[in-house]
């Protein structure tokens, strides 16, 4: 029997509707394990460059414990790892709802490379160009949010949320209202809001959704009081439902003496349509990697931005860039909460975000939001055509939808997580939901403006196929994945401080010594 696959036949056969995908599995060691003493990559110095003798004060007594490899081994290692990924440049990355995976235009990497050799301790006079980019991006984000000033220092979205919480705390303390120790958030706001507030010492009150899937405004009424420091809320929430009464929420909190803080990490559905300050918010933040196209880079180096009203500007993290009409200077706001990361910010991503906004202009930003909402509602229509899928609370959504496989799961015993894992056998994936699951058997899709109609059709066809498999052969789906780099993993070490090891040094200490 001829078992050869028909790829070599001529003429080339049309592709089947679903990809015959197979992920690479290189079984690649950690780069430290590949180290051989004395191996080097060679960077030849420019001809005529003077020899530099480092002064003894900065010279290491012992060389750093870096892995030692030749150049081809480094290239091979990282290419192999890149093949074991389902990154945004490889797959139709609409399944990471709330994380907002959009395309990062490659041209912007060239601009980022142009600033790569700047040193953060260079004198201001020698970096006027990059300071101008910081200044101009700040002004753009201020215009987009309606806020007075913006800090570009935070190194991530959660760092931006934490900076906002720290400003809220400092603001109340400065007014002699340090007794305000409660932060109110909602179940479908990003949980970093609750986590950052708690880390900063606040008590957290979480509002549950009402019958329409919106945060219960009556519960907010019952929650606000003299201890209220702030409301920290996302809108649209993770359900993709826009809260049309958001102004009332803000007003209720203001009446109680609290501040209102808008998590618009992902402003993809509202760019150029509505602004945080116009709804009365005092603070907001953006994730440059969710809304302004910079790479997520696997959890870092991302970048966040905090926007504040004039009353909170003195509390911004510092330094910020000031401009007197001719020169850009670094200055620290009067009552600054201090630094939330070293130096000014994640400069390569500041440059990328600036380039992205400049390439689109104001009309382009609005078109981003309109396309994202259109894509989302188109995909929703395709997903709801799949028997067993539903979108609780009904209605149109803004930029994402938290769906449910409850019906399919009750019928087949296959869980949402298992369906997502099986989808990875076709080269895509999805994420379920934050915990706890309010929507049963959840999955959250967010197509952004980056994906074409064909992309969305392919994605929906994969989920339809897997849902059909779940009905015909649930064990097949439960046994997935079959074509992936990694099959089943036990996640429990991730919850065990004695076992987890985010660095090689920690790994050596915990597991090799």
């Amino acid at each position: 029997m001829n078992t050869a696959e028909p790829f070599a036949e001529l003429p080339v056969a049309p592709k089947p509707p679903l990809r015959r995908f197979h992920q690479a599995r290189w079984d690649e060691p950690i780069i430290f394990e590949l180290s051989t003493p004395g191996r080097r990559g060679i960077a030849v110095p420019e001809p005529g460059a003077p020899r530099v003798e480092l002064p003894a004060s900065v010279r290491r007594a012992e060389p750093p414990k870096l892995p030692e490899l030749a150049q081809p081994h480094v290239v091979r290692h990282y290419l192999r790892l890149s093949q074991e990924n389902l990154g945004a440049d490889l797959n139709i990355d609409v399944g990471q709802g709330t994380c907002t995976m959009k395309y990062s235009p490659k041209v912007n990497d060239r601009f980022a490379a142009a600033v790569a050799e700047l040193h953060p301790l260079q004198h201001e006079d020698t970096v006027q160009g990059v300071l101008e980019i910081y200044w101009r991006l700040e002004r753009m984000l201020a215009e987009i949010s309606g806020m007075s000033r913006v800090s570009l220092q935070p190194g991530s979205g959660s760092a931006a949320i934490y900076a906002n919480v720290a400003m809220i705390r400092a603001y109340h303390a400065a007014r002699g209202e340090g007794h305000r120790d409660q932060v109110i958030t909602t179940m479908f706001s990003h949980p970093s809001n609750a986590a950052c507030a708690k880390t900063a010492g606040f008590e957290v009150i979480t509002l549950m959704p009402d019958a329409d899937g919106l945060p219960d405004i009556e519960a907010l009424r019952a929650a606000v009081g003299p201890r209220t420091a702030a409301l920290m809320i996302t809108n649209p929430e993770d359900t993709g439902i826009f809260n049309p009464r958001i102004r009332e929420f803000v007003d209720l909190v203001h009446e109680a003496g609290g501040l209102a803080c808008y998590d618009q990490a992902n402003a993809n559905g509202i760019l150029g349509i509505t602004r945080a300050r116009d709804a009365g918010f005092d603070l907001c933040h953006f994730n440059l990697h969710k809304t302004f196209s910079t790479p997520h880079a696997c959890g870092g180096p991302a970048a966040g931005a905090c926007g504040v009203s004039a009353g909170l500007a003195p509390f911004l993290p510092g330094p910020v860039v000031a401009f007197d009409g001719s020169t850009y200077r670094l200055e620290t706001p009067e009552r600054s909460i201090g630094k939330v990361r070293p130096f000014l910010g994640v400069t390569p991503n500041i440059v990328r975000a600036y380039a992205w906004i400049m390439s689109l202009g104001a009309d382009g930003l609005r078109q981003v939001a309109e396309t994202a909402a259109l894509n989302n509602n188109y995909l929703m229509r395709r997903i709801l055509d799949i028997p067993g899928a539903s979108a609780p609370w009904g209605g149109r959504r803004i930029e994402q939808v938290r769906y449910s496989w409850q019906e399919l799961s009750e019928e087949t015993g296959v869980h949402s997580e298992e369906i997502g894992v099986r989808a990875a056998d076709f080269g895509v994936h999805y994420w379920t939901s934050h915990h706890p699951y309010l929507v049963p058997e959840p999955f959250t899709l967010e197509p952004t403006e980056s994906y074409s109609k064909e992309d969305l059709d392919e994605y929906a066809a994969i989920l339809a196929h897997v849902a059909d498999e779940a009905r015909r052969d649930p064990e097949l789906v439960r046994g997935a994945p079959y074509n992936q780099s990694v099959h089943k993993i036990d996640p429990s070490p991730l919850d065990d401080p004695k076992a987890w090891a985010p660095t090689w040094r920690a790994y050596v200490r915990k597991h090799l010594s």
Partner: protein
Amino acid sequence: MTGGVSVGLVVNPVAGLGGAAGLKGSDGAEAQRAALARGATPRAGERAARAVRALLSRRPGTRLVTAPGPMGGHSARAAGAPHDLVRPSPLAESGPSGPTTARDTRRAVLAMAGVDLLLFAGGDGTARDVLDAVRELRERGERVPPVLGIPAGVKVYSGCFAVSPAAAGFLAAAYLSGTSGLSGTSGGGPGRAALIEAEVVDLDEDRYRQGLVSPVLYGGLPVPAAPAALSGRKAGSSATAPGTVEGIAREVVSRMRPGVRHVLGPGATTRAVGRALGLATTLLGVDVVERDGAEGRLVAADVSEAELSGLVEGREAVLVLSVIGGQGFVLGRGNQQVSPRVLRAVLGTVPGRLLVLATQQKLAALGGRPLLADSGDEDLDRMLAGHVQVITGYHESTIYRISAASEELYG
């Protein structure tokens, strides 16, 4: 391999009839006739067949023992399951085409006492009939089979039901394969997974139709323990339930002022409060504790309503109650010691003297339904209605809707 395993199936064919007809239940021949007259279609048989199909998909060839016709035989045949009919037929009395009664259900259960697992399709009323039969078996000193409810009734509040027909089938298959249960503990005999005692509760439908609420806890049935919720997880999430319960307990202790009597209701969450105080409080009873410096003091354990009333009358006290999972009852289920007079004595006009405890998971499982107060005094319930702060962890809470059970469920 399924050799030797037998599964009983009893269907209450009239279960669920009253729901679609707006009759708030299907107990009694009159309600059933009224429902049929309003065009209701029986659906319990189809739901039972769905459960059987799910069971067969996991354990092909599983043999059923069932009652004839609409009481199980039809469903088994519809699902393509090999089956034997019990003799004598429980339908002998009603006749094969006549309406079935509670007595038929009981007789069918008694005839199937030897099965490895008994599935029954119906609602809370059917669960009560199964419980009656189980009691009869216990009285006779005979073996009681594990049971599992297929939800097919109007009222399905009892804990002995799976969340859906298919879930019942899957859980049954997991149990028979010895893979269900918590930590693989064996409580139901060799090779079998754990059994837990699940509550059977029901309302008196006649009173319910008149707008009067009298939910009654009738007893417990042995059911297979559901596998620990297989929660899909994002890397790094570590909000496991036990830690949360300890966090709730820490929060309660941090709020306790010395000398104030705290009434701990039944439940694992409130028992964790006792544990955080270093006290051996009871799981099912109501206990009274005080904080004395960093220490806790057990004032009285497992008190009666009268004792409790004496302990809180005329002094400052706080009620600490947990939410009864699934249904959302805060008052009126399992904590009847906290009577209207106790409530009036403690709360006075200060709602802050009631602390409600629940994990976020438990609240999420309510699916947006409110918490329920059913103290036995509807005026009091209405006074409590509105929003209540529910402690969900250390320095974590939510503001959640609470309703008078009489208005929410039956109003």
